[in-house]
Structures are given as structure tokens and as C-alpha cells.
């Protein structure tokens, strides 16, 4: 399969990239690692006039600390995220979930920013960004702005990025002392999650003081399981966690596809939330 013809540019800086996007209007596509865009092009599901390859902009890569915040460049590959000592120390949930994305060859090319900007609700990292309360820094012709993850995922494959904006970095608050787990259910090792659950739990004196639970593939965007989070507060054992997890599918709008019916996805959300939270508390 051969992609449709397009013009190609490879800017060397963020300013050049933003200018190229602004000049092209709505007809440009940003090429990050290409692990989602190239399949779309090959299947002729996208017809950009211009592809802006941001793969050679040094400032978009790498992981650093900024006080209580971990800052990950948008073009940092999944492979680098998985192996980065800072990510492992301060955002273990992200490292764990990223290790389940596709396969090693795809993880060498695919990037954190590309995965978030693609905004596929079946992708693993949007829900993780939501659970971690990440903030996304984007650049446009008017300057830079920061978008919280809860406002970034707008609809199916649609993010809050304007056509002339570029995702620069992902800022994640460090969370010392929180347990975490990403529980993913899929039929084939490298395939998308049918449903997955990202859980973060802070324990205090034998009970759950605070829980953050986000769902992959339970609607057109990643979702917080707020009813389950509220029910989990104060839970003091596996029985209480199981009862709270019954609320995990409340307010979701899961889709029907070849893998699962909406009802089955709701069932999975409840079961996987129980497992994810129990593992995150160290009692699973």
C-alpha cells in the first residue's frame, strides 16, 4: 500500500515547525514517530497536503525535572520513556503502561507526544496522562499555552490542538508514595486494549485515602471513573475495593466493535478496576 502524495518539510526548530503549520492551514499533518500516521496514510484514511516532520528538533526530546514536576519532551520515544530512570522513579505508571504499547520496534519509533496528540481512546497513554493529571504544553503562532489532560482529549481522534499548534512537552506532577498499576485486557500481545484501567492509589493507615482511576477505550475519549474513585475513598480491604469497582462503568459510553459489545466493556471496566486498584495498593 502506497500513501497518497504529499509535500514534506523537516523543520529544525519549534518556531519553524509552527510557521510551516500556520502557512499550510488545515491541510498539514505533524509527523512525530509515524507509528499511527503512516498506517493511516497507507490505508488512505488521511490526505494531508503537507507533512511536517518534527523528528529532528532536539528540544522536543528528553526527560528533565522542574521542581515537583517531571517534564517529558513530546518526541521522546516510548522506548526511552520505558527506560528513563526519572520516569521510572516519579511516574512509574507511565513507564509501566508504555511498556505495553504495541511491540519493541514500534516503541523505538513511536513517541509520547505523538500518541497523545493522536487522541485514540484505545491508545494506552491518553488514559495514563489523565490519571497522572498531566499538563500539555503546546506552541502556536500566538505563543505557548498549557492544556490540562482533562481538557486535551476532545473527541474520537480529536485533541484540543489547533491545526497550527504543536505539542512540545508533557508535564507530570511527581507523586511520591502513591501505588500504581495499569491493567490492560487485549486479545493479542501487540494489539490495542479492548479495555484498560490506569489506577493510582494513596494509602493512609490501612485504607485508601485517595484514588485516581482512568479508563482506556470506554468512550470516544479517555475517561476518569469518578464514581469509582469516590467509592474507593476510605476502602479498607479487598471486599470494599470490589464493591467500589462496581461503579467503574458509570457515565461511560463504550463502543461496539468486533472485539466486544458495550455491555462486555462495562463488565471489563469493573473487573479491571478491581484488579488495578488491588495491585496498586499492594494487595492484589
Amino acid at each position, binding site marked *: 500500500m*502506497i500513501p497518497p502524495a*504529499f509535500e514534506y518539510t523537516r523543520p529544525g526548530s519549534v518556531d519553524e515547525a509552527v510557521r510551516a503549520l500556520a502557512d499550510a492551514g488545515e491541510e498539514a499533518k505533524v509527523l512525530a514517530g*509515524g507509528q499511527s500516521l503512516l498506517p493511516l496514510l497507507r490505508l488512505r484514511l488521511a490526505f494531508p497536503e503537507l507533512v511536517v516532520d518534527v523528528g529532528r528538533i532536539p528540544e522536543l526530546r528528553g526527560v528533565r525535572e522542574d521542581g515537583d514536576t517531571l517534564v517529558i519532551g513530546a518526541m521522546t520515544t516510548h522506548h526511552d520513556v520505558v527506560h528513563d530512570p526519572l520516569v521510572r522513579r516519579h511516574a512509574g505508571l507511565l513507564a509501566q503502561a508504555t511498556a505495553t504499547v504495541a511491540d519493541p520496534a514500534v516503541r523505538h519509533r513511536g513517541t509520547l507526544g505523538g500518541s497523545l496528540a493522536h487522541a485514540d481512546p484505545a491508545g494506552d497513554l491518553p488514559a495514563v496522562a489523565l490519571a497522572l493529571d498531566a499538563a500539555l504544553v503546546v506552541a502556536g503562532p500566538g505563543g505557548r499555552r498549557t492544556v490540562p489532560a482533562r481538557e486535551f482529549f476532545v473527541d474520537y481522534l480529536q485533541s484540543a490542538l489547533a491545526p497550527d499548534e504543536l505539542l512540545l512537552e508533557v508535564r507530570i506532577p511527581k507523586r511520591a508514595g502513591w501505588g500504581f498499576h495499569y491493567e490492560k485486557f487485549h486479545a493479542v500481545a501487540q494489539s490495542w486494549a479492548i479495555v484498560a484501567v490506569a489506577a493510582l492509589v494513596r494509602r493512609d493507615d490501612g485504607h485508601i485515602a485517595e484514588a485516581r482511576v482512568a479508563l482506556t477505550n470506554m468512550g470516544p475519549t479517555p475517561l476518569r471513573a469518578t464514581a469509582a474513585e469516590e467509592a474507593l475513598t476510605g476502602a479498607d480491604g479487598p471486599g470494599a475495593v470490589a464493591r467500589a469497582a462496581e461503579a467503574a462503568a458509570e457515565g461511560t459510553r463504550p463502543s461496539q466493535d468486533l472485539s466486544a459489545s458495550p455491555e462486555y466493556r462495562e463488565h471489563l471496566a469493573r473487573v479491571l478496576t478491581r484488579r488495578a486498584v488491588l495491585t496498586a495498593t499492594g494487595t492484589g
Partner: protein
Amino acid sequence: MTHITVKVDGTTYEDDVEPRLLLVHYLRDRLGLTGTPIGCDTSNCGACTVELDGASAKSCSVLAVQADGCEVTTVQGLAKDGEWTRLQRAFHERHALQCGYCTPGMLMAARDLLRENPHPGAEEVRHALEGNLCRCTGYQNIVHAVLAAAGQQVAEEATA
């Protein structure tokens, strides 16, 4: 047309290519390096796996222009002076192929694993090869071959 310079299996090539040209098509159709097959064309099967600047990549999911200035190693670049690598010999000795279509990709993915983890267990080999599909489902001998190349004990009874 975009001008690119790519080093493939030790030889440097300069070419003008259409931006939409996939790396796998560049290797096969332009350079005649047909040792890298196209399997699924959907990034699922891993048959077209090559090494791009030292890391495995599915060459159906990389544009040739993205490889500009990079170094590519295909399965045809592994043997030196007609001498197979230890991994290739292990594939031969352990009969780690049936039809052979997935073999180039399997070799490149296994090479990637052994570079990061020189002494993997069977489970780790299976995880590392999860992006490479064998349509004959001959995984057992492939896993044995990778373990043997790493000097690991191979549980022969598991073959029975």
C-alpha cells in the same frame, strides 16, 4: 522530490525520492535489497523489520525521507565475508523456520533483544518477538534458536 543520503548495509546511497516513498519500498525497489520482505503492510507482522540507527524498526512504517542521514542494516548486512552471525547460525542449526518469510524480521528483532539483554529467558524472548508474526506458527524453534545464540540452556523437552 527530496534528496536523501542513507547508508545501507555499509554502502552510502544518494537518491531523490518522493516523500511518500516507504523505506521498505526504497530498499526493495530502488536498491534491489529484496531480503527484507513485505508481509502485512499494516505494521502488524514485523517481516520488514530492519535496524535504523541501531534500533529495530518496521520499514513499512518509516518514510525513506525519515531515514535521511541514518544508517540502515537489513538482514543482508548481517553476514560478514560470507560468515553468518552466531544468531543466523543458531536459526540454521535449530531449524527456526518453516517457510522462511518471517525469518529476516525475526533475526532483526532477536538481534535487538540480544543487544539490550544478552542473556534473556524464554519468556523474555517471546515478549521481544511479540511484534513479529510467523504465519507457520513455528515459534518454538525460533525461541530455542534465540536462546541458543545467547548461550542459554534450551529446554529440549518442550519441543516434544
